[in-house]
């Protein structure tokens, strides 16, 4: 299952730095000289296909997604009775916490381009969580 993050991904315009450009930045120069007339512009949708490599990470992703569903349902129920009660606030706070954790995991995979369990695996190759995930 490929991680389709394009729904949540933003269109990023990435200007690729050309090797020559860096060398032409000279200290004190007024005119920024480009070795090409115009830097190329690309529009990328980060619909990443960095998938979870280890079973442990896959488990976490699924667990968090499930928890979000559960907790949203719970919070809606609790808040139906009294919107301003403490229970309602706590319930939505839990939703927020889990949503953020889910997002952090996604970001880690995307930005680091590596599974967060990578270093854990190196030290503990035997654990169940470190079995390589195969779809």
């Amino acid at each position, binding site marked *: 299952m490929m991680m389709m993050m394009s729904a*949540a991904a933003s269109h990023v*315009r990435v200007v690729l730095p050309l090797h020559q450009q860096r060398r032409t930045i000279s200290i004190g120069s007024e005119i920024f000289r480009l070795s090409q007339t115009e830097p190329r512009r690309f529009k990328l949708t980060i619909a990443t296909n960095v998938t979870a490599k280890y079973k442990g990470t896959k488990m976490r992703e699924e667990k968090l997604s499930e928890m979000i*569903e559960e907790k949203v349902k719970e919070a809606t129920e609790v808040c139906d009775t009294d919107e301003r009660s403490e229970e309602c*606030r706590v319930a*939505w*706070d839990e939703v*927020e916490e889990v949503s953020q954790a889910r997002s952090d995991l996604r970001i880690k995979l995307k*930005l680091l381009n590596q599974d967060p369990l990578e270093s854990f695996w190196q030290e503990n190759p035997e654990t169940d969580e470190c079995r390589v995930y195969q779809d």
Partner: protein
Amino acid sequence: MAVSTIYSTQALNSTHFLTSSSSSKQVFLYRRQPQTNRRFNTLITCSQETIVIGLAADSGCGKSTFMRRLTSVFGGAAKPPKGGNPDSNTLISDTTTVICLDDYHSLDRYGRKEQKVTALDPRANDFDLMYEQVKALKSGVAVEKPIYNHVTGLLDPPELIQPPKILVIEGLHPMFDERVRDLLDFSIYLDISNEVKFAWKIQRDMAERGHSLESIKASIEARKPDFDAFIDPQKQYADAVIEVLPTQLIPDDNEGKVLRVRLIMKEGVKYFSPVYLFDEGSTISWIPCGRKLTCSYPGIKFNYEPDSYFDHEVSVLEMDGQFDRLDELIYVESHLSNLSTKFYGEVTQQMLKHADFPGSNNGTGLFQTIVGLKIRDLYEQLIANKATARAEAAKA
């Protein structure tokens, strides 16, 4: 751990602290003391100065982009501790360690549910422990810091944290407790307006099957009372506030893609000289797009002015719009002053390094990078200061 007293001569000013090499070993010359009656310590201590930076914002420790930009300015990539708890919130690079203050929760998710307090409530956090450990790290002592596991919602066994050169504490309450506040050498508050928060949370959560527009809205509304009571007041203590607002360049824009970002910098903070545009202390409005620079819609607009923020004198640098091309960025950089860069184009280079991070084309990325450079500058000044102070003491 090697232990050595450092005496530095007057001529040696430690300016090379943060080089690109992974481990900068400092070589100091020391002058042999003349024989006096005073007995000098034969025990030598290699004390390392630690500065503490506080970063406050909503949603726990989701400020990964800011953190990564910050640590990248100091050199090296920040990674979770090797081989430890995979759910650790800590990030470690060569020079910097980032601690998530959620680790100091006194109540785990179940405890909070029972006591009916949110994570925003100070009752859910152990400020005594936070203070003790930050103080210990600042004075060069390693600590066993608890881990709050965001997946399970439980407090995991502690991890060992070594004192770093730069310690960043990020979370909901870095400036809440007065004792912790006094330990901070610099503090930043990320102030996201409600409209932008809503737009960002939609981007974050809409892909999740559990969420809908209503649930996201309800979640933000429910958080407001606690947020306004406990988190928001911290911004008056911050040395720098990064305020993110919807753009004024596009009428009725509610997508939250184009942003207006304000960098509010407190005046009179030690080792911190605010960035300015053209003329310090004056009021400037600047649109760089024109004859020399062509920008696409909606363009870029800068504002700079002195102001008052919670009874403090501040300077505000504001950017509305977005960068489209490399040369727009370098053009803007060449007109800003007091950036604390080490070479022309450093801000641009740092932004390019992380061109894939969110905010790379607008004020959020720009100001986060600038704040990173300011902190590096603060660190170097502090070190240089302490070195000269020690030299004076050694002479006496």
